[in-house]
């Protein structure tokens, strides 16, 4: 256990320079982008109704008249304290905008991600029992198709069929899941169904493919023959030993797919007008709200790195061999 603890500590220490690098990278980006960096930081400051005092305070706060290196230090220390800039279009600090929108995104992503991991892995493992069978090739074909369909287009098609055609579900109009404007639970679930289904359908094929490939691989290992020879039933070998070993690549893929999930979320939220981080990104692009775009980038990168970290740690729990690396 000591080894595991040391491993976790090491992984956390390794994540810190990565986060620093992301922040510096972001800083560099808006300095080498065409035009005046100040104009990015202050984008939207011309919008009517903003107190000039605020604008001046912001300029001072970010040290925009100081030398570059000093600006970087100011920027870094700001981000570390949770200050991601100020959105003049929304007249709010960026961090506040982001935090308001996170719950909705989580509500959208988490259930569909969990469902696609569990369902996809089980289907994949089942198919691995008889590779090349009719069922296997049918499901594989379907998953290849789903994998190739643009996620937002799938969303749009579902909208056309279920919302505009059959009028079973609302097309948009989801309000915040929390706070004073929150709707009823049934209303929320109705709104949640189509976007979640879209995400689920685009994510599930990847887990089917991963689990299928790794279970097939593992079913060829010598130790599987040992357990078959031992008189274990085929399903026991499959689920107790093969799947347990095949979970390792699945966990890795789940971590790597986070980017995929986020991409899906951004697009799906846009399609269904879901009031989460993705929709906010879309609006920020539309309004060229650069502080918000940059803030979302830094925020999502940090989240991403943290989740990668968690995935690595889960991996270490699942695989006794890792700790001694």
């Amino acid at each position, binding site marked *: 256990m000591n080894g595991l603890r040391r491993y976790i500590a090491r992984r956390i220490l390794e994540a810190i320079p990565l986060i620093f690098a992301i922040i510096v990278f972001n800083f560099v980006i808006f300095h080498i982008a065409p035009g005046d960096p100040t104009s990015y930081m202050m984008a939207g400051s011309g919008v009517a109704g903003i107190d000039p005092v605020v604008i001046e305070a912001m300029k001072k706060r970010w040290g925009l008249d100081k030398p570059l290196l000093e600006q970087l230090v100011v920027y870094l220390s700001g981000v570390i304290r949770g200050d991601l800039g100020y959105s003049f279009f929304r007249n709010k600090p960026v961090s506040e905008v982001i935090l308001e929108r996170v719950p909705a995104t989580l509500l959208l992503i988490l259930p569909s991600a969990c469902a696609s991991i569990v369902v996809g892995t089980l289907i994949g493992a089942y198919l691995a029992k008889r590779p*090349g069978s009719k069922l296997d*090739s049918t499901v594989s074909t379907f998953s290849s198709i789903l994998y190739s369909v643009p996620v937002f287009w799938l969303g749009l098609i579902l909208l056309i069929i279920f919302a*505009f055609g059959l009028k079973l579900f609302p097309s948009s109009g989801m309000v915040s899941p929390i706070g004073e404007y929150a709707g009823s639970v049934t209303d929320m679930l109705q709104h949640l169904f189509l976007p979640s289904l879209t995400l689920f359908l685009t994510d599930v094929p990847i887990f089917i493919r991963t689990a299928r490939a790794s279970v097939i691989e593992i079913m060829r290992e010598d130790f599987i023959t040992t357990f078959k020879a031992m008189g274990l039933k085929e399903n026991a070998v499959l689920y107790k030993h093969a799947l347990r070993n095949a979970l390792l690549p699945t966990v890795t893929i789940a971590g790597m797919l986070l980017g995929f999930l986020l991409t899906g979320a*951004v697009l799906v939220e846009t399609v269904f007008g879901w009031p989460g981080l993705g929709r906010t*990104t879309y609006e920020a692009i539309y309004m060229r709200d650069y502080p918000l775009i940059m803030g979302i980038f830094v925020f999502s990168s940090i989240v991403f790195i943290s989740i990668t970290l968690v995935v690595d740690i889960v991996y270490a729990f699942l695989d006794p061999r890792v700790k001694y690396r």
Partner: protein
Amino acid sequence: MVLAKIRMFWLEYRRDRMAVFGLALVVFFAFIAILAPFITPYDPWSFVSQALSPPSQKNLFGTDKLGRDVFSRVIWGTRVSFIFGLGAATISGLIGIILGAIPAYYGGWLDDLLSRIYEFILVIPTIFLLILIIAMFGSSIYFSMAVVGLTMWPYLARIMRAQVLSLKSKAYVQASIGLGASGIRTLFKHIIPNGIQPVIANITIQIAYAILTEAGLSFLGLGDTTQVSWGQILYWGHLHIASAWWNTVFPGLAIALLALGFTLIGDGINNTLNPKMRESR
């Protein structure tokens, strides 16, 4: 000798029906892209019919808000999507192979550093990176293509690196070094040719991924508005989704089919190289 190899490969490849179907799809779209000027019934930029008219004999896929023929636009868009996919994957492939193979072969600090760099790129959520860069630097299609290519190469570099590391210790590579062959010769004559197949399979899948990414970026309003790409048609089309479904369905279908084609080819190459995955038919 090379021809014989290709023939051998084809004999194995064609046993996979889905892979052959994928190849057929890609060839079909390639022909459309090449012949686009000859098979488009109308100029994709000009008004030909009443706005938002549904599919008819005159306009197979209907018309858009400005009364342009969607069928012609989808055909024309094939070119843009093809170039985008191939271009981005080529950039990614070249960088991935070179930066994956050479440092891994020579080892040392450069290899360590580069591994860190692409691990770094791999932990950045790609979509937000693309949004950030394209929003700030402009959305010209070639620029987006380059940026998409630049975000994809680490995946290939990682595969290439693993291949080089495993092949480097193979006896025939060691024998080549022992014979006195230079590093470059060993790398290009023995290691890369023997290890590149999974990279090629993944480049093919990345073509599909790039096409999907272009569509996604267009959909977020970061597309090149001067181009008739499938993503652009879809983006402007979906604004009228409730009243004119054909503006959404057809370009999306085209994207899906072409991406499917490349994905199936990539899978097919992987299966051909690694026949374990099919087995016992």
